[in-house]
């Protein structure tokens, strides 16, 4: 069995075991998984294009997430509510994401081969700049318009900002109540539609070019494809999709943890995608769908399982952090080894 399938299987076993131990009800888990699918599905899907283009996991989707937060914060600052506010926030976020994506793509084109570390660093730097602006910039350089968001000392935005003006604007559309299970059909369709769009992209000539560049940029250049342009485009799209994903995420939660909401979006999205059987060279929408189910299923049950098994819920928390990082570490180890093996010419004939 290929190693990526084995990861899937491992997650399934862990999830089932955790579920049994935690004694949680199936309906609760289904409800939670649906919520997490809506919240995290697009973020995980945002990782697909850079993987196809051969740059591994894009930890800089935090930048996309930051763009979404800035969009919301600016709209809230101007106190524009309702659909127009939501639309404005989305447009602002996507515009910022385009700019950020171009910058990230240009940056990464300068340092081929170490993209993953670089995206991590870019994520950290973006976070620091963002925190700096909203913690020290608001009230000093930038004049705030909405005093409710500002800390009592007059400088900096509160840690927690309520998204009340947008609450239940889109969740309530086509909300189907199936007794114990709530089915926000519109949101689910929205996520599925975004996934389908990305899936379509991979089947176009652009998607094929990304795959070729990801396989070997030098050979791509021989075919007349400009690797730099394709890689730039992959990152641009990834950042924009991530930003849209974070809009949905925040909108669904209904409030913004201004300084921390985006922090682990990259790790959880990456871990979910890998849990769904993606590798660092190949990923598809089916990996997103399966991964969200397995990874977040495990996520939901593990604190309770830790409580039941060891009498300590914190252990479950540690366990899930370990699972998130461990999945990525394992994928890195397996994939790099696998890539090395592939470089050697194989004499095996096609069956």
């Amino acid at each position, binding site marked *: 069995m290929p190693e990526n399938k084995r990861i899937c299987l491992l997650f399934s076993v862990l999830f089932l075991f955790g579920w049994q131990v935690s004694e949680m009800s199936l309906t609760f888990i289904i409800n939670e998984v649906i919520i997490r699918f809506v919240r995290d599905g697009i973020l995980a899907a945002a990782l697909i294009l850079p993987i196809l283009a051969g740059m591994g996991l894009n930890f800089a989707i935090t930048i996309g997430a930051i763009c979404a937060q800035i969009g919301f914060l600016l709209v809230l600052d101007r106190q524009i509510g309702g659909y127009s506010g939501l639309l404005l926030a989305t447009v602002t976020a996507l515009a910022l994401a385009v700019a950020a994506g171009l910058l990230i793509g240009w940056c990464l084109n300068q*340092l081929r081969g170490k993209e993953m*570390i670089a995206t991590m660093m870019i994520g*950290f730097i973006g976070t620091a700049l963002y925190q700096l602006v909203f*913690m020290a910039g608001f009230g000093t350089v930038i004049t705030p318009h909405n005093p409710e968001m500002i800390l009592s000392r007059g400088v900096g935005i509160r840690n927690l900002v309520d998204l009340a003006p947008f609450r239940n604007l889109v969740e309530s559309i086509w909300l189907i109540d199936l007794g114990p299970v709530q089915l926000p059909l519109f949101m689910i369709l929205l996520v599925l539609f975004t996934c389908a769009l990305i899936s379509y992209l991979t089947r176009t000539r652009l998607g094929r070019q990304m795959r070729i560049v990801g396989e070997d940029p030098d050979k791509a250049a021989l075919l007349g494809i400009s690797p730099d342009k394709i890689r730039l485009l992959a990152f641009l799209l990834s950042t924009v999709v991530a930003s849209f994903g974070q809009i949905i995420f925040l909108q669904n939660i209904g409030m913004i943890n201004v300084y921390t909401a985006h922090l682990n979006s990259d790790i959880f999205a990456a871990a979910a995608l890998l849990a769904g059987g993606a590798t660092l060279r190949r990923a598809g929408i089916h990996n997103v769908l399966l991964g969200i189910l397995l990874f977040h299923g495990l996520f939901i049950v593990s604190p309770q399982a830790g409580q039941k098994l060891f009498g300590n819920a914190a252990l479950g928390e*540690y366990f899930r*952090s*370990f699972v998130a990082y461990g999945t990525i*570490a394992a994928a890195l*180890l397996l994939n*790099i080894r696998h890539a090395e093996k592939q470089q050697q010419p194989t004499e095996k004939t096609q069956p």
Partner: protein
Amino acid sequence: MHHLRQHIPQCIISLFLLLLILLAHSVGLPVAALLSDALVRLGMNGVLTLAMLPMVRAGAGLNFGLPFGIIAGLLGMTLAVNFRFTGLYGFAGALLLSLPFAMLLGWLYARLLNRVRGREEIAGIFAGFSLIFVMNFFWSVAPFTNPAMLWPIGGQGLRPTVNLQPYFGKSLNKLLLVTGDGWQLPLGLLAAFFLLCAVVHCFFRLRLGRAMIAVGDNEDFARLAGVNIQRTRTVAIMLSTVLAALGICFYAQSYGFLELYDAPLLLAFPAASSLLLGGYAGAGGSVGQVVLGTLLFQTLYVFTGPLANELLAPQVSEILRSLITNSVILYSLFYEGRRRRAGK
């Protein structure tokens, strides 16, 4: 031209530092005390930066898997606290106790990294992160008996922060401490740090050290000279891990507290950043760069804190530090990538 560009970060940081010092002076901060503080922090963090060196020289990249060594050091120190070791001998005991763990974890780490040649850095980051969370598990169930380390309620699981003052905290800092008007100079700490630096420096003049450098520079060359590449890399990675274990002991005793759980998660980045600030750029790497880089980085650290609090909002200093740390790493990746492209 080439050399100038290589030193852009140092130039910028030095200028920035000068500006900071002037600024600090003008707003009435005690500059001498801050500078002496930077020296204390050199001794405190220097060994962690030094832990980057063997791996860098053996061509295994920056040691972003520093948590492997750090965990070993933490294990040594928790054992030492559990046995209620005190004073300088207690500190020495903690160092000794962490050695076997460091060797073991270093060996494991080397096995991991030898599988991912060329991509050691990103693999190290995530392997290190994972280990931290595994150890979180351990800290909360480990059968330690010294109640000073355990949660007051329930008596099970270690506290996130253990006070080292009753044991060996600051023991090295207080050794040969020279104090003056508002400043202090921990000669003992600095001497110990420089002693370690000298040991590492000499190591690279030994036969094994030479082999390590050759493996890092040109594997084909080393292979032809009969060097066992795999073994040499393993030794280099183990050495880095041992140094990291010693480094966290230096760090914790100087800080006075033992920080467990998630605390060491991001410690590798400032250490890597320090080495890069010292002028390491993809090849070579020397003890001099370690000392210079750590000194620059820590001076920056001590000056940004009070200044940011004075001029901007509180909490901003942490953000500024993270900004500097990661920008330096990104710049070095950038520089390396450009050079590779130009050379292609």
